[in-house]
């Protein structure tokens, strides 16, 4: 063996050895992408309880100022009752006051109310005095909880004191289920303390792996699929046809259109293959039927099925032209 052949063999074996060694450490120890990746997710996740079944994030400012939203807003003057109702009750204007939100859905231990208890952590600019006064006007009362002011309201007479709003820190409010809001304050003050039964979702490795795997979109959601289907009241014939999906995640980037990735983690590889087959069938059918509509065809061409093992991923890109088409059709129907 010549010297340079020896060097070649050593270099090759070194690359293979270091590569496999790093991969093995990553696989068994569980560091996400080696030394190259962040902890994953926004810092507000540290206030979401560990048992959250669905976690969602939206960069509200980015979405509200997006070209798509402006276009939809001018083309389709949709009723914004929810937005107005929130502003009337709490004084929070979603468009101007909020920068980003993290929302979660947790199993509701106190009642069997579907779909469980929810909480929204909103970061932005809030007028605390105005918000508190408005909530008092609507029947809310102020409580002190661990040095934080908690405004508790009754969303309905049957469920008194189940809605609360708290100013967790300057520029951060928590609103939603009173139990979850108190939990968020606990987590904010003491941090993770599993021994005391207080742990945030950042300790849920399975969910956090999915959060880390999300694209750098301005809106995403991750959750347990059964948490959705159990409250969907689907007919038995439909429910039995749904593949056994354990986790789902959706990551989107809203700007001049919507692009993103939908991922599903199935229980086993066979289920993933079946799901891929189903999606592939629909894609082929869709692509065959959209020859005459170039806008839809562009969108369908962008659908890319991927994923390995138990993961099925479908990336998509809905261009602005598709929304133009939809808004045109909607206007025709209104006329």
């Amino acid at each position, binding site marked *: 063996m*010549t010297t*340079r*052949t020896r060097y*070649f*063999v050593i*270099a*090759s*074996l070194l*690359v*293979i050895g270091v*590569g*496999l060694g*790093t*991969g*093995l450490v*990553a*696989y068994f120890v*569980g*560091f*996400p*992408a*080696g030394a*190259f*990746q962040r902890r994953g997710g926004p810092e507000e996740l540290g206030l979401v309880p560990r048992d959250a079944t669905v976690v969602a994030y939206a960069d509200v400012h980015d979405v509200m100022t997006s070209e798509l939203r402006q276009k939809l807003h001018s083309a389709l003057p949709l009723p914004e009752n929810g937005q107005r109702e929130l502003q009337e009750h709490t004084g929070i204007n979603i468009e101007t006051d909020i920068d980003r939100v993290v929302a979660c859905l947790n199993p509701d231990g106190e009642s069997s109310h579907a779909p469980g208890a929810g909480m929204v952590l909103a970061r932005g600019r809030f007028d605390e005095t105005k918000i508190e006064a408005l909530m008092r006007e609507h029947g809310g009362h102020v409580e002190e909880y661990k040095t934080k002011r908690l405004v508790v309201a009754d969303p309905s007479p049957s469920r008194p004191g189940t809605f609360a709003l708290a100013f967790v820190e300057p520029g951060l409010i928590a609103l939603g289920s009173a139990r979850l809001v108190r939990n968020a304050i606990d987590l904010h003050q003491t941090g993770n303390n599993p021994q005391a039964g207080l742990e945030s979702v950042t300790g849920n490795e399975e969910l956090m*792996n999915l959060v*880390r*795997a*999300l*694209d*750098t*979109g301005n809106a995403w959601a991750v959750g347990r699929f059964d948490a959705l289907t159990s409250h969907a009241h689907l007919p038995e014939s439909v429910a039995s046809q749904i593949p056994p999906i354990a986790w789902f995640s959706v*990551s989107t*980037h809203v700007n001049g259109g919507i*692009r*993103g*990735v939908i991922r599903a983690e199935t229980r086993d590889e066979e289920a993933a293959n079946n799901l*891929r*087959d189903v999606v*592939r*069938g629909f*894609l*082929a059918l869709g*692509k*065959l039927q959209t020859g005459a509509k170039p806008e839809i065809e*562009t969108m369908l*061409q*962008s*659908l*890319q*099925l*991927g*994923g*390995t*093992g138990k*993961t099925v*991923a479908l*990336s*998509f*890109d809905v*261009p602005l032209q598709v929304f133009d088409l939809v808004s045109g059709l909607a206007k025709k129907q209104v006329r």
Partner: protein
Amino acid sequence: MLWSRRSVFLGILLGGPVVLAAIVRIVVTLYARGFRINGATAAGSTVFGLMIWLLYIRFIVPILGVFFGTALIADEVDDKTITYLFTRPIPRRAVLLGKYVAYVACTVLLVLPSVILVFFLIVPMGGSTIAAEFPALLSDLGMLAAGLIAYGAVFALVGTRLKRPLIIGLVFAFGWEPAVLLFPGYLKRLTVAYYLQGLVTHEMPQDSVVSTILQRFLEFPSVPVSLLSLAVIVALALWLAGRAVEEREYVLEQ
């Protein structure tokens, strides 16, 4: 074998995916918008899967097999050095087998580092994690090694049996195999690619409506069937190649 002009060219060829992966990674890092396929953001694992399919399985592995496999004996004939090998007190098939083992070692040491570098450059993009994709990398490395072993054996047979083995090898790898795989029926079982595709864990790229529809109806053999079939192909091809070397009379042109 390792330092011939052909090997240097193929080394550059294998560096191509690494350079491509590095460029993609730099662009994605600079612009932070993710890698996009048909306008949609794709995860690093999806991009890596595409590279494995399009660059390695469909191009690099067959071309390495063709260039090195056909050259095992043919080069010695062309260089008129085969006499020196065959006058050694060892069976002729042992010479072939030794050269074949050297081919496997060289190509595996060329391809696997290239794949590993591409994996570490591409997979951490778009949110995929090395930890989650590591099992897929292991199966890819195994699959590519199996492909190199199988193609090498088949083209070693071509090199010992036929005249102009390089042209015939290229026609087989880039004409016969891709064409036959598209036809329904049993002809595809006469290819190496059919069994190799049974070992791939990544989703096949859907580059057109036709490929999407075809993919829907394509059948892949199971992993045990693929491995067994590849083992049979290798054993049969090497045995026939060995026999050809033993029986054939090589007349060296003066």
